[in-house]
């Protein structure tokens, strides 16, 4: 970097810092008529990176913006923002999709890495489905984590859904087998299967998941109707590796993005959607049952790009 470049960079950083000090109000005022320059594009790129879209994805978007700006299609900062918002929404086209509940019972397999929020999401989903007039059975197929069965049991009480369980350490395939039998016999609408959290790199645990799926489909044709990977919004670029490996193993039908009520934006789902074309079926926006909601691209993108 030339001496001048370094100096300019320092001045820019200084300005940015003082703008932050001056507060958002003035910031907004300054940026309304702000021309499109490298500094602005760089800020947008950082915003995307900060939202976990990944350096490569962020830079692709910014390149497109730069092209548009050159062609005179974006003159002010506001134009650029709108363009970027449009790009992101376009990328997420087809990402919102409803749950498939046409089976009788419809079987939903919940999976993901440890701590993503599978059990909580399963519980909330059960409550939501019961609230919508569906009959639901929960299968406690996480027999590994201490306390997982008790945790789901508490949710089954709250949701008013029955639960099929065995002891801790039992074969999850056996739990699932029993659960399908119970769900079929009682003719319930939905069977929700909560599985143990597993890192996507552990091949034996992934094999176990493949077996679970096989047991389901052998017992009930068309099952599982949904294989949902639960992903927490704070996840970084590793989310793509997770989705890819779970998808390869069992064939995912969609994602559930949890913990969006924090400061993390969950931008990794854009990259996942770009690469694997997986829909995002649900988002978790809080601790209450009604905080589990269908994904909406517009709302999501608005969250990624807060107004200056």
């Amino acid at each position, binding site marked *: 970097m030339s001496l001048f470049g370094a100096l300019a960079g320092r001045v820019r950083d200084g300005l940015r810092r003082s703008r932050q000090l001056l507060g958002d109000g003035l910031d907004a005022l300054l940026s309304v008529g702000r021309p499109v320059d490298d500094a602005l594009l760089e800020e947008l790129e950082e915003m995307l990176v900060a939202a976990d879209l990944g350096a490569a994805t962020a830079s692709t978007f910014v390149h497109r913006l730069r092209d548009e700006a050159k062609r005179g299609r974006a003159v002010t900062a506001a134009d650029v923002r709108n363009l970027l918002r449009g790009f992101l929404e376009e990328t997420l086209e087809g990402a919102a999709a409803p749950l498939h509940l046409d089976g009788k019972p419809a079987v939903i397999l919940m999976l993901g*890495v440890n701590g993503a929020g599978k059990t909580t999401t399963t519980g909330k989903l059960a409550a939501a489905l019961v609230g919508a007039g569906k009959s639901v059975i929960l299968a406690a197929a996480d027999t590994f984590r201490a306390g997982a069965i008790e945790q789901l049991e*508490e949710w089954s009480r709250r949701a008013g859904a029955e639960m099929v369980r065995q002891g801790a350490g039992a074969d999850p395939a056996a739990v699932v087998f029993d659960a399908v039998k119970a769900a079929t016999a009682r003719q319930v609408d939905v069977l929700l299967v909560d599985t143990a959290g597993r890192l996507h790199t552990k091949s034996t645990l992934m094999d176990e998941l493949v077996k679970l799926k096989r047991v389901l489909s052998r017992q009930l044709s068309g099952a599982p109707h949904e294989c949902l990977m639960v992903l927490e919004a*704070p996840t970084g670029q590793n989310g793509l590796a997770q989705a890819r490996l779970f998808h390869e193993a069992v064939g995912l039908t969609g994602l559930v993005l949890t913990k969006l*009520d924090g400061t993390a934006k969950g931008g990794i789902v854009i990259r996942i959607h770009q690469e694997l074309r997986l829909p995002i079926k649900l988002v978790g926006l809080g601790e209450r049952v009604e905080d589990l909601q269908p994904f909406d691209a517009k709302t999501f993108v608005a969250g990624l790009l807060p107004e200056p």
Partner: protein
Amino acid sequence: MFDSLTTRLTGIFDRLRGFGRLTEENIQEALREVRVALLEADVNFKVVKAFVERVRDKAQGQDVLKSLTPGQQVVKVVRDELVELLGGSGHRLAMAPHPPTVIMLVGLQGSGKTTSAAKLGRHFQKQGLHPILASADIYRPAAVDQLKTLGAQLGIPVLGDAAQKPVAICRQARDEAAQRGLSPLILDTAGRLHIDEGMLEELRAIKREVGPHHVLLVVDAMTGQDAVTVADRFNQAVGVDAIVLTKMDGDARGGAALSVREVTGRPIAFVGVGEKTEALEPFHPDRLAQRILGMGDVLSLVERAQAAMDQTQAEDLARKIREESFTLEDFAQQLKQLRSMGPLGQLMDMVPFFKGGKGMPRELQGEEHELQRFEAIIASMTPGERTTPAIINGGRRARIARGSGTSVSDVNRLLKQHAQLKKMMKGLKQMEGRMGKLKGALPFLPR
């Protein structure tokens, strides 16, 4: 995709090879790649920015060390800087003079607090201490049960009652630990969002009431850019003394650790590497630095190559190449040096490019045998044959094969490889005029 940094750095390193000095341009290019690599490893972009500036200052204008190629030097600066940022290794949690030592775990939900609490209990138990656990997480259904189950497996007492208030649970736990002479006391707290003021206030209340000696922030290694915000809020609200990095047994690069470290200035004390209660390790900054960069241990490979290569031998070899007198004797010496660097499989493990390549070990075993065979073949030759391979006719080949316990086709292969090598060296010599230096063109030539 996630391994691309390895390839990228190797690429830069190849391109930089042969330059005697790092120019501003090629440093700039390397730093751009490093920036992307760090971002892909989930290091926060602000941290990356500051980091790249520091590396630029260090890398610029430095003369190339005799021992390293320029590319590797950039890598080395980056790596050293990362290690330094990640802090010294083996941070120990000091025990308080008056037991119980109280250790309090805080963090987001799902980061692995409860599992880490049990693992820490096991860790201290193995050191001969008598830990006790307490769960103040009365919100997540069955969180207390989870810790109690884990404690029962380890034979560590666990306190906690979902019907009580968290502060009361912690206070009673401290009193009970003191009474029973148990230490350390490990407090597992409720995981909720860092923007949940009520939760932060509860953590502050516990801290005020119990006065923990160590507050540990538990961070999921798969966390992205938001790690800085989380660490900052927890640090502001309750104060963090050290960090536990969990779920490092996956393939996440763990750049979040760097962000958290930079924001809090606190050391990373432990790393969670598996689901078993044993799976807690002390933190090694150098290993994490390597992992963040996605590189194998290139530097120790270079060090080994240097150790194996005698300087005078090296100069001798360089002269021979110039004089085009690279004999089979020299070839044998080269093979010996290659083998003295250690088992080939282990060497390959250090080269990022080969790391994780499937079926590699078996092939390499073949290679190693081949080297041994070549050495045996050359040993069965007369001095004349070694200096002038052209005189080796059919009869001599049969004799050499018999003498070395190999076959004529093995001997042929060796002679062919030697001829090829010699031809390659001739080519290099011609290139030397245009390229300036021969340096780095062959892996085992002196630099």
